[in-house]
């Protein structure tokens, strides 16, 4: 009894217990709502992040700057080795440059022959990285561009060289990029010389998996991998990386984008994104369950043939249903 702290507030304890139970239930309810109707709660999340993170910038920017300064300073210490290394690399690069010049001329000639024009509608916005996901289980970064700059959910992001991820969650002034290494990232890709299609599956490691390959033998380490442009997700032919074989024998991807130091990120204005507005309904075929009534085949005698047997055209075209979340 003497250690009973709130003797005088005996009446308050059941109320407190009730408050605790209500709070826990409210949290669990929020979690369930998120699991059921994720897009709406994710929009709330984007707004929360939008309200909080830019206000932390005054504190985070100097600390980040100092840490990067320290990193740079460490790299000065081994400047001599780096110098030698660079000379060696420069020599190799001279060889490559010759090769590149030759290829460029050849390429220009071929382009001229083919009358190819690159997609002029693929413009981009550049943002800087404000924060990362803050958790070892999630791979994403927060950019300082948002709905104010016209960003839309689903746009691809690159650094100068390769694909990095996609926009998922747009606030007024911030937006989140889910990196290709995140466990929820799935991107349709094409392996270049063989034309094999695959799904690039993030698994929280630095080298995402190459899944659903049709013919594994046609793919070898070192092959170029670009986006496929399937599923109305990304424009085709964005460079993603090169195939590598993991120690477990599975095919993985060495990403072309430099994840070591994501600082400036290009957001491509893709024209083919699909807005995710609802949690997604059942996936049912929208057209053509009923095959067209088979024409009477007076010449044939016997049991009626199954529909679609006579003419190849009566099979319903597999149109993707609308409103299915693409991720």
């Amino acid at each position, binding site marked *: 009894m003497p250690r009973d702290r709130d003797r005088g507030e005996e009446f308050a304890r059941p109320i407190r217990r009730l408050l605790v139970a209500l709070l826990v239930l409210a*949290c669990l309810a929020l979690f369930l709502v998120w699991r059921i109707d994720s897009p709406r709660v994710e929009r709330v*999340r984007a707004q*929360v992040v939008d309200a909080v993170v830019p206000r932390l910038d005054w504190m985070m920017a100097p600390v980040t700057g100092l840490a990067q300064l320290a990193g740079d300073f460490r790299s000065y210490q081994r400047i001599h080795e780096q110098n030698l290394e660079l000379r060696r690399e420069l020599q190799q690069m001279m060889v490559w440059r010759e090769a590149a010049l030759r290829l460029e001329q050849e390429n220009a000639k071929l382009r001229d022959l083919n009358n190819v024009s690159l997609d002029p509608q693929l413009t981009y916005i550049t943002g800087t990285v404000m*924060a990362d996901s803050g*958790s*070892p289980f999630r791979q994403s970064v927060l950019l300082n561009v948002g709905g104010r700059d016209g960003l839309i959910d689903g746009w691809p992001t690159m650094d100068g060289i390769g694909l990095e991820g996609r926009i998922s969650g747009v606030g007024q002034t911030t937006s989140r990029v889910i*990196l290709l290494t995140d466990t929820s990232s799935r991107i349709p890709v094409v392996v270049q010389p063989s034309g094999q299609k695959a799904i690039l599956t993030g698994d929280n490691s630095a080298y995402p998996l190459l899944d659903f390959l049709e013919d594994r033998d046609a793919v070898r380490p070192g092959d170029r991998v670009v986006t496929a442009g399937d599923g109305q997700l990304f424009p085709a032919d964005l460079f993603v990386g090169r195939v590598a074989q993991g120690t477990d024998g599975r095919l993985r991807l060495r990403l072309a984008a430099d994840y070591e130091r994501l600082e400036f990120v290009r957001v491509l204005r893709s024209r083919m994104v699909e807005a995710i507005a609802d949690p997604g309904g059942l996936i049912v075929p929208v057209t053509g369950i009923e095959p067209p009534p088979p024409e009477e085949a007076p010449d044939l005698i016997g049991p009626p043939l199954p529909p679609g047997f006579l003419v190849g055209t009566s099979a319903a075209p597999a149109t993707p249903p609308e409103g299915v979340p693409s991720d």
Partner: protein
Amino acid sequence: MIEARPPKTQPWSARITYLALAFVLLAAALLPLNTVPRSYGTPDILLGVTAAWAARRPDTLPILVIAGVFLLADFLFQRPPGLYAALVLLMTERLRRRSTRLRKGSFPGEWLAVSLGIAAVGLANHLILSLLATPQAAIRFTLVQIILTIALYPVITGVAHMALGLRRPAQGEVDALGHKL
């Protein structure tokens, strides 16, 4: 002559200390220093700090503050919102109920109780997410995170004791208004 000093930790200052610490830890985790996936889990220092507060000075840790801090963390860290917060609330309530008994015992007893709580939170979180088929990282990350957080607990309490004055109240200690702690 030694004058009678008021107890070192006033409830309000301890509350503000906790909030400031939580704020700093949240911001520190968000610093964009490492965007390459790590092959290990990192300790959840915020959870360790909260457990230390709940085990030592539960009177300075209002439940609304815990709920607010962890919901914000859920939103900022891309975790499924609400689940982790609910589990942490359950853990702190358990520690709070046991805090008077823990106070009389030794530090290993407190460490054990807190370790059980931290492990339960991590494993329950992983289990529920797998049951609901939410995409998540492999379980070894969760295990490493639990072990590191537990291993860091003495460090956290040590630092909190020295720097922030978070200590277990002595038997019969009273606060400024004469209430028993």
